């Protein structure tokens, strides 16, 4: 069985952003559950945090193919 070890490395690297994105949306859901009228404001912040955390996974997948 052959394959590229980079992909295993990428899988490991994706754990961090995965946990991060989970925490961000957990906090977002919590916030909306406590104060539903704040959803509009929270959504923007949540999506921004999601995008920033996701950037790490994205850089990982780019490097997995490049290296």
């Amino acid at each position: 069985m052959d394959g590229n070890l980079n992909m295993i490395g990428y899988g490991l690297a994706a754990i961090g952003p995965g946990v991060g994105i989970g925490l961000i949306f957990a906090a977002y859901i919590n916030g909306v559950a406590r104060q539903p009228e704040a959803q509009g404001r929270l959504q923007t912040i949540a999506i921004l945090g999601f995008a920033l955390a996701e950037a790490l996974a994205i850089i990982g997948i780019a490097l997995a193919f490049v290296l």
Partner: protein
Amino acid sequence: MILTGPLVVRAEGFTPPGPRDFDLPPLGPDKTFEMFGQTFYLGVTKPMIQIVIAAVLVFAFFYVASRRRAMVPGRLQYVAETGYGFVRNGMGRDIIGSEQFLRYVPYLFALFFFVLVNNLFATIPFFEFPTFSRAGMVYGLAAMSWVVYNAAGIHRHGLLGYLKLQCVPPNMTGLILVLLVPLEFFSNIVVRPITLALRLFANMFAGHLLLILFALGGEYLLVHGEGLVKPVGIVAWLLFITVAFLEVLIQFLQAYVFVLLNAMYISGAVADEH
């Protein structure tokens, strides 16, 4: 353990999809020429055609929808106005602020629908290829947004004022600035367009790669699999359909995030000094 045996043996004949699957053959003249030390094709490729079609589609739709405006909107005008309002209020006014957002709404609006249509091309039959899964297509957009947010900031604060706003954190004095200023410059001016481009590119790339993997893997299992392995191919195809729906969500979300981040960069650039 029993199942993995035949699967591993079988996997040797299967060529997994890779970045090469995105190198589509050029249409038109099959000649190459050298420029800047690179080899270029004379013909055009599918993403090049799609990017033009997307621009024409977006322009034509909103031109037709806004040509016959009425006090009581028709069906077409209603759709166009909803889309416009979504970008104008959700991304422009809420993020840039009600004082100076109107100047940037046309840019954000055009950008959102351009990116959205290009992303949805990955799902629309007969296109079925995300334009932005070719990195070169995204670099153009990222370069444009880099120019826009920097120009917006320089226009408002002047060059030195803008650099101070972006690079010098407030309420910081002394030696720590020697460390912080280069870091802030790097993070706010150099890296932003790169992450912006890579995010959109890698999402489209990875999503399409995933779909290719499910389609080809399912086909391989069904045709070349033995005995009990065959039905797994059907499961792979069912997953293909599920993932395709997930991709539609991601395509929309990435267009949204791309424009949202553009708006946030502009808002940070034109903000008053804190």
